[in-house]
């Protein structure tokens, strides 16, 4: 078991806990291409951790490693103090890790409410027999989970569209529904893959507010990939910077902002 250092309190009074997830020497290859080269970093309980870097740096791949979709050829993922064995993505989800996707991955054949309810699926355990009768156990479980889903829907202010088929929604609303689905799982760690992509200033402000509220109210640990520097600097407690599959920066926003390697990467200074 790893020895966990205690948490601390931030300047604005939020409680950051000990390390909850740690990536140790992760290397990920696709055929001949090394998407991630020996990267290590950790995520603390309750913090907002940004993963940034130029396009193609391997950020989404890193998120996929965390959610178990990609299995790294080398390295270990440590979760809540112990090494996470190789497991299927759905088992990872059942451990309390939820995520949103870069190109929206909502279930287009279902309504908003149903999509949010799919976020509750890891929690709904009634057997097939009870479900085929519906009245009794299954209905009670459905109602209980519906209440949780409705709270999230209220929180994200999408009540009016709850019965709308998701395929009819605008891009911004779809992103919000995807966030609702992830939140409905009441996850310990929430992974957000470019949650602000394609949004205007107003929408970004709304989404930022939601992210902060989620972290504040539910204490959810958040790891997010984001390109908008302003958002990153304002929202995150700590930042990891990736470039060409390697880690080139790791620290608070101000530390990272002044890191020469990071500046070079973004300005496009040639590598040797």
């Amino acid at each position, binding site marked *: 078991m790893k020895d966990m250092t205690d948490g601390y309190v931030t300047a604005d009074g939020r409680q950051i806990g000990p390390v909850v997830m740690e990536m140790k020497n992760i290397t990920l290859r696709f055929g001949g291409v090394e998407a991630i080269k020996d990267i290590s970093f950790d995520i603390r309980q309750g913090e907002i951790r940004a993963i940034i870097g130029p396009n193609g740096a391997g950020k989404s791949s890193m998120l*996929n490693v965390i959610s178990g*979709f990609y299995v790294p050829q080398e390295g270990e993922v440590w979760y809540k103090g112990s090494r996470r064995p190789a497991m299927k993505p759905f088992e990872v989800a059942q451990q309390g890790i939820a995520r949103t*996707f*870069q190109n929206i*991955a909502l279930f287009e054949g279902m309504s908003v409410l149903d999509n949010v309810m799919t976020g509750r699926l890891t929690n709904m355990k009634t057997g097939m027999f009870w479900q085929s009768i519906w009245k009794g156990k299954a209905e009670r479980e459905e109602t209980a989970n519906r209440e949780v889903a409705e709270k999230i829907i209220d929180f994200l202010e999408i009540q009016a569209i709850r019965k709308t088929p998701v395929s009819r929604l605008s891009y911004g609303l779809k992103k919000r529904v995807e966030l609702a689905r992830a939140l409905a799982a009441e996850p310990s760690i929430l992974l957000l893959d470019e949650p602000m992509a394609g949004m205007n200033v107003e929408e970004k402000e709304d989404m930022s507010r939601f992210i902060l509220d989620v972290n504040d109210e539910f204490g959810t640990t958040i790891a997010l990939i984001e390109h908008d520097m302003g958002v990153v600097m304002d929202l995150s407690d700590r930042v990891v910077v990736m470039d060409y599959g390697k880690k080139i920066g790791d620290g608070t926003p101000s530390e990272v902002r002044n890191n020469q390697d990071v500046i070079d990467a973004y300005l496009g200074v040639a590598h040797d």
Partner: protein
Amino acid sequence: MPEQLAFTIEVFLNGLMAGVLYALVALGFVLIYKASGIFNYAQGVMALFAALTLAGIIDGQVPFSHLINAILGTDIHHFGWHVPAFLAILLTMVVMIGLAYAVQRLVFRHLVGQEPIILFMATIGLAYFLEGVGDLMWGSDIKSMDVGLPQGLNTWIDDTTFNAFGYGFFIDNLDIVASIIAALLVIGLVMFAQYTKQGRAMRAVADDHQAALSVGVSLNFIWILVWSLAGFVALVAGIMWGTKSGVQFSLSLIALKALPVLMLGGFTSIPGAIVGGLIIGVGEKLFEFLIGAPFLGGATENWFAYMLALIFLVFRPQGLFGEKIIERV
């Protein structure tokens, strides 16, 4: 040569020939799938329709005669003329191009962008529709097909092998001709796809519709071209199969045989269709000869191809030569 071995080799060779015919039908599928992502279940019925039309034109049948007679109370059946085979084939090709145009215009133009399963089901509907039209047009009785292809035992092979091995191999002339024609077709199609402007445009469309549009490729033209090519392949297949076993409904069931060929070879690969066809042809006949007839009561050819393909797919979901399906999130 011991008799059992001689039999086995003969079955093997016949299997190769059968495989070539399967590959012919499978080619039609690959063409359309490559260019439009549509899995054309109606390919087999297209072969049947082509064969029916050819036989009907050669015999000078009046199209829809049965129906006309029923409605109007007349009793006409034939025009009374006989069209020479070569001309009839050309005319049938014109019909198939017309069919390609109609199918593109009336059906698939309206289904652009739909999910693959919807497109597939549309082709099932098309298969039923075309079968019904074919029957109404030319009648559903069995017809014989004779375009002057050589048939019957190849005596040269029979004599030579008998003298060499003590056992005369029974290889049908028709099968030899079919193999040669199929081989020529394959070479022709591959060269067309690789080296001509239209072929390149076809491959561009298969890759990315939007990108092809942006470099000035007319999607509709390519699709009509592809369906016409598939129609041509269907006609050749129809002639081969029709000469072999007569033009009848069971011709359309070849499509069902072509499916395991495609599963093995990969849906997007022309060489895959050939290799898959040969493997299925040989495998099917050998299995029936060695295991099916003696131990399992026979008629295993109905399902062996599918089982083989199924098992193969479990280990290699994209087939032998198909593009590996990489799923990204």
